[in-house]
Protein backbone atom coordinates (compact mmCIF):
# COMPACT_ATOMS: atom_id res chain seq x y z
CA UNK A 1 0.00 0.00 0.00
CA UNK A 2 1.31 3.40 -1.03
CA UNK A 3 0.75 6.37 1.30
CA UNK A 4 0.39 9.88 -0.08
CA UNK A 5 0.22 13.19 1.80
CA UNK A 6 -1.55 15.90 -0.20
CA UNK A 7 -2.39 18.12 2.78
CA UNK A 8 -2.11 21.81 1.92
CA UNK A 9 -1.94 21.17 -1.79
CA UNK A 10 -4.53 22.91 -3.92
CA UNK A 11 -6.28 21.34 -6.88
CA UNK A 12 -5.39 19.90 -9.26
CA UNK A 13 -2.13 18.91 -7.50
CA UNK A 14 -3.63 16.14 -5.32
CA UNK A 15 -5.15 14.55 -8.45
CA UNK A 16 -1.86 14.85 -10.33
CA UNK A 17 -0.20 13.15 -7.32
CA UNK A 18 -2.59 10.18 -7.25
CA UNK A 19 -2.45 9.85 -11.03
CA UNK A 20 1.35 9.60 -10.92
CA UNK A 21 1.16 7.09 -8.06
CA UNK A 22 -1.34 4.97 -10.01
CA UNK A 23 1.19 4.41 -12.79
CA UNK A 24 2.57 1.59 -10.60
CA UNK A 25 -0.95 0.03 -10.59
CA UNK A 26 -1.00 -0.94 -6.91
CA UNK A 27 -4.15 -2.43 -5.43
CA UNK A 28 -4.41 0.02 -2.57
CA UNK A 29 -3.48 3.60 -1.76
CA UNK A 30 -3.93 5.75 1.34
CA UNK A 31 -4.13 9.47 0.76
CA UNK A 32 -4.69 12.30 3.19
CA UNK A 33 -6.05 15.65 1.99
CA UNK A 34 -7.31 18.66 3.93
CA UNK A 35 -9.93 20.28 1.78
CA UNK A 36 -13.29 19.17 0.41
CA UNK A 37 -12.45 20.00 -3.21
CA UNK A 38 -9.37 17.76 -3.14
CA UNK A 39 -11.41 14.99 -1.49
CA UNK A 40 -14.08 15.22 -4.19
CA UNK A 41 -11.64 15.44 -7.10
CA UNK A 42 -9.37 12.59 -5.95
CA UNK A 43 -12.43 10.42 -5.24
CA UNK A 44 -13.85 11.11 -8.70
CA UNK A 45 -10.55 10.39 -10.43
CA UNK A 46 -9.94 7.15 -8.50
CA UNK A 47 -13.47 5.94 -9.26
CA UNK A 48 -12.91 6.69 -12.96
CA UNK A 49 -9.84 4.44 -12.76
CA UNK A 50 -11.91 1.59 -11.35
CA UNK A 51 -11.00 2.00 -7.66
CA UNK A 52 -13.34 2.15 -4.70
CA UNK A 53 -12.90 5.00 -2.25
CA UNK A 54 -13.87 5.25 1.40
CA UNK A 55 -13.35 8.46 3.35
CA UNK A 56 -12.72 9.05 7.03
CA UNK A 57 -12.85 12.61 8.33
CA UNK A 58 -11.05 13.85 11.43
CA UNK A 59 -9.99 17.38 12.45
CA UNK A 60 -10.65 18.87 9.02
CA UNK A 61 -8.56 16.21 7.30
CA UNK A 62 -9.84 13.47 5.03
CA UNK A 63 -8.18 10.06 4.93
CA UNK A 64 -9.01 8.35 1.64
CA UNK A 65 -8.69 4.57 1.38
CA UNK A 66 -8.45 3.79 -2.32
CA UNK A 67 -8.74 0.11 -3.19
CA UNK A 68 -9.35 -2.13 -6.21
Amino acid at each position, binding site marked *: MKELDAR*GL*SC*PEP*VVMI*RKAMISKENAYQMVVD*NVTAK*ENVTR*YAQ*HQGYQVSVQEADGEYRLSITK
Partner: protein
Amino acid sequence: MPKTHEKTGIVLAGIAIGVIASLLVFFGNPVNMGFCIACFLRDISGALGLHTAPAVQYIRPEILGLVLGSFLLSVFRKEFMPRGGSSPLTRFVLGFFVMIGCLMFLGCPFRMILRLAGGDLNAVFGLLGFVCGILAGVFFLNKGYSLKRTYKLPTLEGAAFSAIQVALLVLLVAAPAFIYFSEAGAGPGALHAPILISLAAGLIVGALAQRTRLCMVGGIRDLVLFGEWKLLAGFIAILASALVCNLVLTGTGAGTFFTLGMEGQPVAHTDGLWNFLGMLLAGFGCVLLGGCPLRQLVLSGEGNTDSAITVLGLGIGAAFAHNFGLASSGTGPTANGKVAVVIGIVVVAVIAVANTVRTEKA
Protein backbone atom coordinates in the same frame (compact mmCIF):
# COMPACT_ATOMS: atom_id res chain seq x y z
CA MET B 1 -22.28 13.98 -4.14
CA PRO B 2 -22.67 11.17 -6.71
CA LYS B 3 -20.99 11.80 -10.06
CA THR B 4 -24.15 12.26 -12.14
CA HIS B 5 -25.62 14.65 -9.56
CA GLU B 6 -22.39 16.64 -9.61
CA LYS B 7 -22.58 17.11 -13.36
CA THR B 8 -26.30 17.93 -13.31
CA GLY B 9 -25.65 20.40 -10.49
CA ILE B 10 -22.95 22.29 -12.32
CA VAL B 11 -24.97 22.38 -15.57
CA LEU B 12 -27.99 23.80 -13.71
CA ALA B 13 -25.72 26.31 -11.95
CA GLY B 14 -24.16 27.26 -15.30
CA ILE B 15 -27.60 27.80 -16.84
CA ALA B 16 -28.64 30.01 -13.90
CA ILE B 17 -25.38 31.99 -14.07
CA GLY B 18 -25.75 32.55 -17.83
CA VAL B 19 -29.27 33.89 -17.36
CA ILE B 20 -28.18 36.13 -14.47
CA ALA B 21 -25.27 37.51 -16.53
CA SER B 22 -27.57 38.29 -19.43
CA LEU B 23 -30.15 39.93 -17.14
CA LEU B 24 -27.48 42.14 -15.54
CA VAL B 25 -26.95 43.70 -18.98
CA PHE B 26 -30.73 44.14 -19.27
CA PHE B 27 -30.69 45.95 -15.91
CA GLY B 28 -27.87 48.30 -16.89
CA ASN B 29 -24.43 46.65 -17.04
CA PRO B 30 -22.33 47.22 -20.21
CA VAL B 31 -23.22 44.91 -23.13
CA ASN B 32 -21.53 41.49 -22.96
CA MET B 33 -20.40 42.43 -19.44
CA GLY B 34 -23.00 40.97 -17.11
CA PHE B 35 -19.98 39.70 -15.27
CA CYS B 36 -16.31 40.40 -15.89
CA ILE B 37 -14.06 39.81 -12.92
CA ALA B 38 -11.12 41.62 -14.54
CA CYS B 39 -13.19 44.63 -15.64
CA PHE B 40 -15.00 44.88 -12.31
CA LEU B 41 -11.81 44.68 -10.23
CA ARG B 42 -10.37 47.33 -12.54
CA ASP B 43 -13.43 49.51 -11.89
CA ILE B 44 -12.99 49.06 -8.12
CA SER B 45 -9.29 50.02 -8.39
CA GLY B 46 -10.42 53.15 -10.20
CA ALA B 47 -13.13 53.95 -7.65
CA LEU B 48 -10.49 53.78 -4.91
CA GLY B 49 -8.30 56.18 -6.85
CA LEU B 50 -5.57 53.62 -7.58
CA HIS B 51 -5.92 54.68 -11.20
CA THR B 52 -7.64 57.74 -12.63
CA ALA B 53 -9.16 56.53 -15.91
CA PRO B 54 -12.50 58.38 -15.70
CA ALA B 55 -14.33 55.82 -17.87
CA VAL B 56 -13.80 52.86 -15.53
CA GLN B 57 -14.41 53.81 -11.90
CA TYR B 58 -17.15 52.12 -9.85
CA ILE B 59 -17.34 49.83 -6.83
CA ARG B 60 -18.97 46.83 -8.51
CA PRO B 61 -21.37 45.12 -6.07
CA GLU B 62 -21.09 41.89 -8.11
CA ILE B 63 -17.51 41.40 -6.86
CA LEU B 64 -18.47 42.04 -3.23
CA GLY B 65 -21.41 39.64 -3.62
CA LEU B 66 -19.29 36.89 -5.16
CA VAL B 67 -16.89 36.90 -2.21
CA LEU B 68 -19.63 37.23 0.40
CA GLY B 69 -21.87 34.60 -1.27
CA SER B 70 -19.01 32.15 -1.15
CA PHE B 71 -18.14 33.18 2.43
CA LEU B 72 -21.71 32.73 3.71
CA LEU B 73 -22.30 29.37 2.00
CA SER B 74 -18.90 28.01 3.03
CA VAL B 75 -19.57 28.97 6.66
CA PHE B 76 -23.04 27.38 6.45
CA ARG B 77 -21.62 24.18 4.94
CA LYS B 78 -18.67 24.12 7.33
CA GLU B 79 -16.25 24.48 4.42
CA PHE B 80 -14.89 27.84 5.54
CA MET B 81 -11.21 27.11 6.15
CA PRO B 82 -8.71 29.91 6.81
CA ARG B 83 -5.45 28.94 5.15
CA GLY B 84 -2.57 30.38 3.20
CA GLY B 85 1.20 30.47 2.84
CA SER B 86 1.58 28.82 -0.56
CA SER B 87 4.01 31.24 -2.24
CA PRO B 88 1.82 34.34 -1.70
CA LEU B 89 4.13 36.85 -3.42
CA THR B 90 4.47 34.61 -6.48
CA ARG B 91 0.67 34.42 -6.61
CA PHE B 92 0.48 38.23 -6.37
CA VAL B 93 2.79 38.52 -9.39
CA LEU B 94 0.80 35.91 -11.32
CA GLY B 95 -2.43 37.77 -10.50
CA PHE B 96 -0.84 41.02 -11.65
CA PHE B 97 0.09 39.60 -15.06
CA VAL B 98 -3.17 37.69 -15.49
CA MET B 99 -4.83 41.10 -15.24
CA ILE B 100 -2.43 42.57 -17.82
CA GLY B 101 -3.43 39.72 -20.18
CA CYS B 102 -7.14 40.20 -19.46
CA LEU B 103 -6.98 43.95 -20.11
CA MET B 104 -5.16 43.34 -23.39
CA PHE B 105 -8.12 41.16 -24.43
CA LEU B 106 -10.64 43.32 -22.54
CA GLY B 107 -12.16 40.67 -20.34
CA CYS B 108 -11.52 37.79 -17.98
CA PRO B 109 -12.28 34.18 -19.02
CA PHE B 110 -15.84 34.65 -17.71
CA ARG B 111 -16.41 37.68 -19.96
CA MET B 112 -14.78 35.80 -22.82
CA ILE B 113 -17.66 33.32 -22.62
CA LEU B 114 -20.20 36.16 -22.35
CA ARG B 115 -18.64 37.91 -25.36
CA LEU B 116 -19.03 34.69 -27.36
CA ALA B 117 -22.62 34.46 -26.15
CA GLY B 118 -23.17 38.02 -27.42
CA GLY B 119 -21.88 37.11 -30.89
CA ASP B 120 -18.47 38.80 -30.51
CA LEU B 121 -16.24 36.64 -32.73
CA ASN B 122 -13.08 38.45 -31.56
CA ALA B 123 -13.46 36.29 -28.47
CA VAL B 124 -12.76 33.21 -30.61
CA PHE B 125 -9.13 34.41 -30.87
CA GLY B 126 -9.18 34.93 -27.11
CA LEU B 127 -10.50 31.40 -26.59
CA LEU B 128 -7.77 29.91 -28.80
CA GLY B 129 -5.10 31.80 -26.84
CA PHE B 130 -6.74 30.76 -23.57
CA VAL B 131 -6.59 27.08 -24.57
CA CYS B 132 -2.91 27.43 -25.58
CA GLY B 133 -2.11 29.12 -22.26
CA ILE B 134 -3.87 26.34 -20.38
CA LEU B 135 -1.94 23.70 -22.34
CA ALA B 136 1.32 25.45 -21.37
CA GLY B 137 0.27 25.40 -17.73
CA VAL B 138 -0.79 21.74 -17.90
CA PHE B 139 2.65 20.87 -19.35
CA PHE B 140 4.28 22.21 -16.18
CA LEU B 141 1.68 20.60 -13.88
CA ASN B 142 2.54 17.26 -15.44
CA LYS B 143 6.23 17.97 -14.80
CA GLY B 144 5.55 18.54 -11.09
CA TYR B 145 4.86 22.29 -10.89
CA SER B 146 3.73 23.33 -7.43
CA LEU B 147 3.55 26.53 -5.38
CA LYS B 148 3.91 24.34 -2.26
CA ARG B 149 1.56 23.72 0.63
CA THR B 150 -0.85 25.98 2.45
CA TYR B 151 -1.16 26.06 6.24
CA LYS B 152 -4.01 26.64 8.65
CA LEU B 153 -4.46 30.24 9.76
CA PRO B 154 -6.56 32.03 12.42
CA THR B 155 -10.26 32.61 11.65
CA LEU B 156 -9.84 36.39 11.56
CA GLU B 157 -7.15 36.08 8.86
CA GLY B 158 -9.47 33.95 6.73
CA ALA B 159 -12.45 36.26 7.24
CA ALA B 160 -10.56 39.53 6.69
CA PHE B 161 -11.06 39.61 2.94
CA SER B 162 -14.81 39.18 3.31
CA ALA B 163 -14.81 41.96 5.91
CA ILE B 164 -13.06 44.20 3.37
CA GLN B 165 -15.94 43.53 0.96
CA VAL B 166 -18.40 44.77 3.58
CA ALA B 167 -16.28 47.90 3.99
CA LEU B 168 -16.35 48.42 0.22
CA LEU B 169 -20.14 48.02 0.26
CA VAL B 170 -20.38 50.77 2.90
CA LEU B 171 -18.18 53.02 0.72
CA LEU B 172 -20.38 52.28 -2.29
CA VAL B 173 -23.59 53.20 -0.49
CA ALA B 174 -22.16 56.16 1.45
CA ALA B 175 -20.31 57.44 -1.66
CA PRO B 176 -17.90 59.78 0.16
CA ALA B 177 -16.09 62.41 -1.95
CA PHE B 178 -12.81 60.45 -2.01
CA ILE B 179 -14.41 57.56 -3.91
CA TYR B 180 -14.53 58.07 -7.68
CA PHE B 181 -17.50 57.07 -9.81
CA SER B 182 -17.53 57.38 -13.60
CA GLU B 183 -19.93 60.12 -14.63
CA ALA B 184 -22.89 59.32 -16.88
CA GLY B 185 -21.76 58.81 -20.46
CA ALA B 186 -18.06 58.59 -19.49
CA GLY B 187 -17.75 54.89 -20.37
CA PRO B 188 -18.41 51.37 -19.09
CA GLY B 189 -17.88 52.40 -15.45
CA ALA B 190 -21.02 54.54 -15.67
CA LEU B 191 -23.12 51.61 -16.89
CA HIS B 192 -24.36 49.45 -14.09
CA ALA B 193 -27.42 47.67 -12.79
CA PRO B 194 -28.99 48.96 -9.54
CA ILE B 195 -26.86 48.15 -6.48
CA LEU B 196 -29.30 45.66 -4.91
CA ILE B 197 -29.70 43.70 -8.16
CA SER B 198 -25.94 43.59 -8.73
CA LEU B 199 -25.30 42.56 -5.14
CA ALA B 200 -27.96 39.85 -5.23
CA ALA B 201 -26.56 38.53 -8.53
CA GLY B 202 -23.08 38.39 -7.02
CA LEU B 203 -24.32 36.61 -3.88
CA ILE B 204 -26.22 33.97 -5.88
CA VAL B 205 -23.41 33.34 -8.36
CA GLY B 206 -20.82 33.30 -5.55
CA ALA B 207 -22.83 30.67 -3.68
CA LEU B 208 -23.40 28.60 -6.84
CA ALA B 209 -19.72 28.77 -7.76
CA GLN B 210 -18.69 27.81 -4.22
CA ARG B 211 -21.03 24.84 -4.25
CA THR B 212 -20.08 23.55 -7.71
CA ARG B 213 -16.34 24.60 -7.71
CA LEU B 214 -17.05 26.30 -11.05
CA CYS B 215 -13.87 27.50 -12.74
CA MET B 216 -13.40 28.75 -16.28
CA VAL B 217 -9.79 27.56 -16.50
CA GLY B 218 -10.42 24.32 -14.61
CA GLY B 219 -12.81 23.02 -17.29
CA ILE B 220 -10.30 22.81 -20.11
CA ARG B 221 -7.44 21.98 -17.70
CA ASP B 222 -9.21 18.97 -16.16
CA LEU B 223 -10.32 17.69 -19.55
CA VAL B 224 -6.72 17.73 -20.82
CA LEU B 225 -5.16 16.47 -17.58
CA PHE B 226 -7.62 13.78 -16.52
CA GLY B 227 -10.30 13.47 -19.23
CA GLU B 228 -12.72 14.98 -16.68
CA TRP B 229 -15.70 16.91 -18.10
CA LYS B 230 -17.39 18.20 -14.95
CA LEU B 231 -16.07 21.78 -14.87
CA LEU B 232 -16.19 22.15 -18.65
CA ALA B 233 -19.89 21.25 -18.52
CA GLY B 234 -20.44 24.36 -16.38
CA PHE B 235 -18.45 26.50 -18.83
CA ILE B 236 -20.55 25.26 -21.78
CA ALA B 237 -23.81 25.66 -19.84
CA ILE B 238 -23.03 29.35 -19.17
CA LEU B 239 -22.26 29.92 -22.85
CA ALA B 240 -25.44 28.18 -24.00
CA SER B 241 -27.80 29.81 -21.52
CA ALA B 242 -26.36 33.33 -21.93
CA LEU B 243 -26.60 32.90 -25.72
CA VAL B 244 -30.25 31.81 -25.57
CA CYS B 245 -31.10 34.54 -23.08
CA ASN B 246 -29.39 37.20 -25.25
CA LEU B 247 -31.32 36.01 -28.31
CA VAL B 248 -34.63 35.99 -26.43
CA LEU B 249 -34.04 39.48 -24.98
CA THR B 250 -33.06 40.79 -28.42
CA GLY B 251 -36.11 39.10 -29.95
CA THR B 252 -38.48 40.75 -27.48
CA GLY B 253 -37.17 44.18 -28.50
CA ALA B 254 -35.67 44.94 -25.09
CA GLY B 255 -32.45 46.08 -26.77
CA THR B 256 -29.50 44.64 -28.66
CA PHE B 257 -27.94 41.81 -26.70
CA PHE B 258 -26.57 39.78 -29.62
CA THR B 259 -24.64 41.03 -32.66
CA LEU B 260 -22.74 38.45 -34.67
CA GLY B 261 -19.43 39.67 -36.07
CA MET B 262 -16.09 41.27 -35.23
CA GLU B 263 -16.45 44.97 -35.99
CA GLY B 264 -18.08 47.40 -33.60
CA GLN B 265 -18.45 44.97 -30.69
CA PRO B 266 -18.98 46.60 -27.29
CA VAL B 267 -15.83 47.10 -25.16
CA ALA B 268 -13.73 45.02 -27.58
CA HIS B 269 -11.13 45.46 -30.32
CA THR B 270 -10.45 43.49 -33.50
CA ASP B 271 -6.70 42.78 -33.17
CA GLY B 272 -6.76 38.98 -33.34
CA LEU B 273 -3.09 38.42 -32.50
CA TRP B 274 -3.22 40.45 -29.30
CA ASN B 275 -6.60 39.04 -28.29
CA PHE B 276 -4.91 35.64 -28.65
CA LEU B 277 -1.75 36.59 -26.73
CA GLY B 278 -3.65 38.41 -23.99
CA MET B 279 -5.73 35.35 -23.18
CA LEU B 280 -2.74 33.05 -23.60
CA LEU B 281 -1.10 34.99 -20.77
CA ALA B 282 -4.32 34.86 -18.72
CA GLY B 283 -4.83 31.11 -19.27
CA PHE B 284 -1.20 30.24 -18.51
CA GLY B 285 -1.17 32.34 -15.35
CA CYS B 286 -4.53 31.01 -14.15
CA VAL B 287 -3.44 27.37 -14.43
CA LEU B 288 -0.36 28.17 -12.34
CA LEU B 289 -2.66 29.86 -9.80
CA GLY B 290 -5.01 26.87 -9.71
CA GLY B 291 -8.06 28.75 -10.96
CA CYS B 292 -9.56 31.63 -12.94
CA PRO B 293 -10.23 35.09 -11.42
CA LEU B 294 -13.81 34.05 -10.50
CA ARG B 295 -12.48 30.99 -8.67
CA GLN B 296 -9.92 33.15 -6.84
CA LEU B 297 -12.76 35.36 -5.53
CA VAL B 298 -14.73 32.30 -4.41
CA LEU B 299 -11.70 30.73 -2.70
CA SER B 300 -10.90 34.01 -0.95
CA GLY B 301 -14.45 33.94 0.43
CA GLU B 302 -13.79 30.40 1.74
CA GLY B 303 -10.87 31.78 3.77
CA ASN B 304 -8.01 31.13 1.34
CA THR B 305 -5.68 34.09 1.87
CA ASP B 306 -3.43 33.07 -1.05
CA SER B 307 -6.41 33.68 -3.31
CA ALA B 308 -7.09 36.97 -1.54
CA ILE B 309 -3.48 38.01 -2.28
CA THR B 310 -4.05 36.93 -5.90
CA VAL B 311 -7.13 39.19 -6.09
CA LEU B 312 -5.04 42.06 -4.72
CA GLY B 313 -2.49 41.29 -7.46
CA LEU B 314 -5.29 41.46 -10.04
CA GLY B 315 -6.47 44.80 -8.64
CA ILE B 316 -2.99 46.34 -8.56
CA GLY B 317 -2.33 44.95 -12.06
CA ALA B 318 -5.43 46.83 -13.23
CA ALA B 319 -4.22 50.04 -11.61
CA PHE B 320 -0.82 49.70 -13.33
CA ALA B 321 -2.53 48.86 -16.62
CA HIS B 322 -4.40 52.17 -16.62
CA ASN B 323 -1.65 54.29 -15.05
CA PHE B 324 0.91 53.17 -17.65
CA GLY B 325 -1.33 52.89 -20.70
CA LEU B 326 -1.20 49.08 -20.90
CA ALA B 327 -4.94 48.42 -21.19
CA SER B 328 -6.50 48.14 -24.63
CA SER B 329 -9.51 50.17 -25.66
CA GLY B 330 -12.14 49.80 -28.36
CA THR B 331 -9.62 51.18 -30.84
CA GLY B 332 -7.10 48.41 -30.13
CA PRO B 333 -4.09 47.50 -28.01
CA THR B 334 -1.39 50.01 -27.04
CA ALA B 335 2.36 49.66 -27.70
CA ASN B 336 2.99 49.68 -23.94
CA GLY B 337 0.37 46.98 -23.51
CA LYS B 338 2.04 44.74 -26.07
CA VAL B 339 5.40 45.07 -24.28
CA ALA B 340 3.70 44.32 -20.95
CA VAL B 341 2.02 41.17 -22.30
CA VAL B 342 5.33 39.86 -23.69
CA ILE B 343 7.05 40.59 -20.36
CA GLY B 344 4.12 38.87 -18.63
CA ILE B 345 4.44 35.71 -20.70
CA VAL B 346 8.19 35.59 -19.93
CA VAL B 347 7.65 36.18 -16.19
CA VAL B 348 4.90 33.55 -15.98
CA ALA B 349 7.12 31.06 -17.87
CA VAL B 350 10.02 31.75 -15.48
CA ILE B 351 7.70 31.18 -12.49
CA ALA B 352 6.52 27.92 -14.07
CA VAL B 353 10.06 26.66 -14.72
CA ALA B 354 11.44 27.76 -11.34
CA ASN B 355 8.67 26.03 -9.40
CA THR B 356 8.93 22.87 -11.49
CA VAL B 357 12.69 22.39 -11.42
CA ARG B 358 12.73 22.91 -7.66
CA THR B 359 10.05 20.24 -7.25
CA GLU B 360 11.93 17.69 -9.31
CA LYS B 361 15.12 18.25 -7.31
CA ALA B 362 13.27 17.93 -4.00
